[in-house]
């Protein structure tokens, strides 16, 4: 096991390239270091590229309708950034329900994306906006829409030699912005059902995003279609077939498929019935 502590992003990229398949990027470590050192022996061959000294990556910038979160931006950084919280309120909402304050001060948005958990709450909020990520390697920068980043359970289009450099959110005007996370506990809960919604006030387009409902955090095209068509809904149950077209929740330790579907339908219905008069009761 080796740990590299680069101070520039280009060094980090070369180190990662040199490490080949043994390379692992580390940011806040809140996913990677769980149960460390009990798991240390599983990483005998790992070469860690710790980004913590690449300080420019901590930066948040907000200009010209674009919010840019560096790879080391933490949840807490966003909570404390008035600009970010004002431009993209769901980010702050999501940040406050990630773990606890101690996690929010260390965990990064980039780590949340790259970790690829289907329960990722940061990703849920980010995907409800027009979000692109910039992946850097020694070969240069590549921009990928967050919408198409995940290819399956914990797999993404990112290559092993790529570092997520920044998260770029393009600001639109929104008529509706909604975020809800259902867990068993009132706090420190892993999401059982997560739903985020935005509606663009210019072109009326929708983004419907769910987490813990499919192998990845995902947009829900069928639901978005129904919403764009302003299709009236008789009640929460009417959403179920459409939800089933978009996601495939499972039974696991934390909940059941049935619960997830039913609650997602109810969240959708109550969120929209309040905000869209065409929905019906």
């Amino acid at each position, binding site marked *: 096991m080796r740990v590299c502590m680069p101070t520039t992003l280009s060094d980090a990229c070369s180190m990662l390239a040199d490490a080949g398949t043994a390379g692992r990027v580390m940011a806040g470590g809140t996913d990677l270091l769980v*149960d*460390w050192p009990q798991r240390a022996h599983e990483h005998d061959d790992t070469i860690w590229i710790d980004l913590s000294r690449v300080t420019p990556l901590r930066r948040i910038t907000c200009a010209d309708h674009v919010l840019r979160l560096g790879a080391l931006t933490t949840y807490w950084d966003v909570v404390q950034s008035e600009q970010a919280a004002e431009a993209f309120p769901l980010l702050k909402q999501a940040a406050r329900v990630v773990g606890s304050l101690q996690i929010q001060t260390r965990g990064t948005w980039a780590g949340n994306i790259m970790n690829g958990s289907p329960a990722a709450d940061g990703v849920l909020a980010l995907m409800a906006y027009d979000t692109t990520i910039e992946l850097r390697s020694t070969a240069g920068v590549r921009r990928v829409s967050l919408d198409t980043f995940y290819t399956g359970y914990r797999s993404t289009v990112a290559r092993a030699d790529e570092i997520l450099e920044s998260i770029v959110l393009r600001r639109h005007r929104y008529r509706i912005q909604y975020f809800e996370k259902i867990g068993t506990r009132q706090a420190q809960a892993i999401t059982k059902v997560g739903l985020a919604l935005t509606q663009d006030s210019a072109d009326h387009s929708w983004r419907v995003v769910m987490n813990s409902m499919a192998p990845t955090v995902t947009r829900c095209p069928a639901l978005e279609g129904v919403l764009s068509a302003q299709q009236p809904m008789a009640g929460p149950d009417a959403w179920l077939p459409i939800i089933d077209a978009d996601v495939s929740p499972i039974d696991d330790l934390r909940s059941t498929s049935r619960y997830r579907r039913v609650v997602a339908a109810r969240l959708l219905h109550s969120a929209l019935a309040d905000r869209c008069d065409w929905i019906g009761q």
Partner: protein
Amino acid sequence: MAQCLYTFNVNGHSQTVAADPLESLADVLRDRLHLTGTKKGCGAGDCGACTVLIDGSPVNTCLTPIGTVNGREITTIEGLAVNGELTPLQKAFVHEGGIQCGFCTPGMVISATHLLNDNPSPTTDEIKEALTGNLCRCTGYGGILRAVQRCDNYRGDGTCAKKAEPPADKSRKYDNVNISIPRVDAADKVTGRAVYTADVTLPNMAYGKLLGSPVAHGIIKKIDISKADALPGVLTILTGADVTDTLHGVSPARYDEEILAKTKVRHIGEPIAAVAAIDEATCKKALSLIDVEIEPLTPVLDPMQAVADGAPIVHERYKGNINTHVEQEFGDLEKGFADSYHVREEEFIGNHIQQAPMEPHASVATWDHDGTLVLYSSTQVPHYVQYMMAHVLHIPLGKIRVIRPAVGGGFGGKAATSPIDICSALLSKATGRPIKMVYTREETFTYGRGRHKQYMKFKLGVDKEGRIKAFKSEIYLDGGAYSSFGVATAYYAGSMIPTLYHLPAYRYDGYRIMTNKPACGAMRGHGVPQPRFAFECLLNMVADDIGMDPVEIRLRNAMDANTMTVNDLDIGSCEYKATLEQVREKSDWNNKYGKLPAGKGIGIGCGGFVSGAGYCIYRGQVQLSHEKPREHFQKKSIFPHANAIAKVSEDGMAVVLMIGAADIGQGSDTVLVQMCAESLGIPASRIRMRSEDSDISPIDLGAYSSRITLMGGHAVSRAGTAVVEKMKPYAAKLLGCDPSEVEARHATMFPRGNESHTVLWEEVARQYFNDKGPLVGTGCYKPPDGLGGDYKGATVGTSPAYSFGSAVCEVNVDLETGKVKVEKFTDYHDCGTPINPQSVHGQVEGAIVMSTGETIMEDIQFDEKGNILNPNLHGYLLMTIKDAPEIFSGLVDSYESRGPFGAKEIGEGSTLPVLGAVAHAIANATGVWIKDLPITPEKILNALRKKQESAEAPSLAATR
């Protein structure tokens, strides 16, 4: 991995350490800088015990690699109090009951300090938000919340010292009891000075780890340690072949655990090898190199399947996988049911839960050159550990010294001798070095000893007036792979039901079943919370059936003082009815029950417990068990269960109180000091407690069955009285009165009735010393002879005294998501005289929050192979500060003549009303009863859907 140098600032001083870059800040602070105030409760970011401030922000140091803190500014708990002066927040924690076991305290104080730095007057919601990352298993967060809210009251000078000694109030009956003084260990705990077992470091110490079985059921074919043995840094490796055949356990009739499995493994995680190495990482690496071959057998995980014909057998000695069978019948059951106006039968299922104290188990062992074992253990029962170590090591008990450092909670999980107690001693013997072993959070789950999951079939008959005529209970307890406490658990599950209500006829059939899961043990309320939950629910159902108010039906059946129960338990004081009337009044029950809108609910549950078990866990005298003759059981204690020595310092200014009673956070040191002070007639602040070392303190059986206040209390107060008796002739001489007239109070002695004619207490003590040498008094306590009836198992449930309590719970259920928010609890208890009311309320608040979690979220889950799916604190859910309800805790007037100063118990009795109250409130809010725990949102929605479907079904049929 190559070590690097890191320089950072800790509490204002620059520090440079050489470390692996991925070593956690928690380990660096604790192991290299000896700042052990930062605790490790999980290693996974879940508990917050390891919280420090980095550049002013709170972080979990267990997840913070040292490589990332170079050049940063770190504040640990040790950095808060400047020159020994506590911060206002620390003082508030001390005085407002913010501390029990103290294991969460440093992290909690750090998080709260961060909050107050930014926001000096936070709202309640802001405080909760700031503390969500800090779990507390003891306090229920009530005292913590009050401490942060009232922090302002502690600004300015010296509040702490001023408050420590309440002004003498001559009109009070007592000076030191029935009064809330701060815990004697509070200042140590709030500053990070208190030493827990994992904080102990001895010269030349090495580390140990256990290898757990990877399969739930199998035959060990081969264990090859050669590769592991060759690993640099490994000192020794032990397997089943290296240890004696002696079996150990808890119930003497059922010792069935091997030190390390020799031929068969019975649950995942069962210890099969122990390794000692120079550090934990090397131990862990060595474990991964041990080559184990196990022929798998089919595991049996479901107790109801385990008793079916042809099921795999877990132990040959337990036929049909039945470990214990209890069959008890009292009164005329058939007639009782025949005479009943209404009979209802229901099935209930409890859940398998874990004590999950914030401190994981730890042991440090070393051997003196004379062959004495010195064992530091995070245990609730130092004496039983001593006894069991003597048993497995085949050395006299007198050659074993058990030191119990501060313990970070137990709740029953630390009430047995653990594999790390035994293996640290064996590894230490083999290596000639002190060995430290600390469980990871996961290992605490695979070691187990949690609450038995019980499958209960109850039948209750009442007459028209709601009077109970007969009750029948059939319970299957899922015991896991070993006996542990289980025999007693199976008996307790039946024996405690008749203490609350007059039952003219009662039958109990209990079966404890073996399965291939970690052994279950004794958890707070030992065996009783689930049957009590089921009984209270059934009583509420029956009340509804016959149209009677749930409080009313209880009042009609409630136990009275000085009653012998149907199963021969001797109830002395009993103010159960008063607790019922008080909760009804205080909660405004009559205006709420049946009158709340859908989604809001109110419910009631009751319960009570023993104040110490009437008999010791083992029979006969204290002696090496192998040599002990089989003794005929006599209905009396062979030796005293609690023993104390009070030794007065030569100048008379201090008293050292010695008693081996285990303070595990419940506060026993403090109440014992208070009771001893009362007998001595001096303020509690003059007494120092020495309870932690078996070389210093005489035997007390430990912290289980809620026994210390009553039993230890008698012992210490008798020791105090013995001291005063010795002083009386000397005082009499100075006062010019007869020794029989001398009284001691307020650190003076005086002739009875003449409090103005005094001599200083210490002056009398000095006179005694000058004349006779050491001034020492001893005291002991034996439970009364003859407790219990004359049937099999009659000893279980016996006690000198019983507690009673009633709780009303109010909930909000979101009918869309099934999410339950327990909003409010109103609780009244009869605990006799509260020795320290703040401590009593702290127990009640903690119990309510813990047991609410048990009712709505805690559950150990297994896969089909017997792996625990949630052996951590993100999968196994404990209530956070945001989940905790608002609690009103009240006490009714009560005096127990068998208790010291009238005291009984509160520690376990406080849990018993809770489950039933929460379940009832949820049923009241939703219109559906959930009879299997935990009552999750998923179950609530399912039940609501089924109810709706069955309501729709007839109308559908009609339209067809």
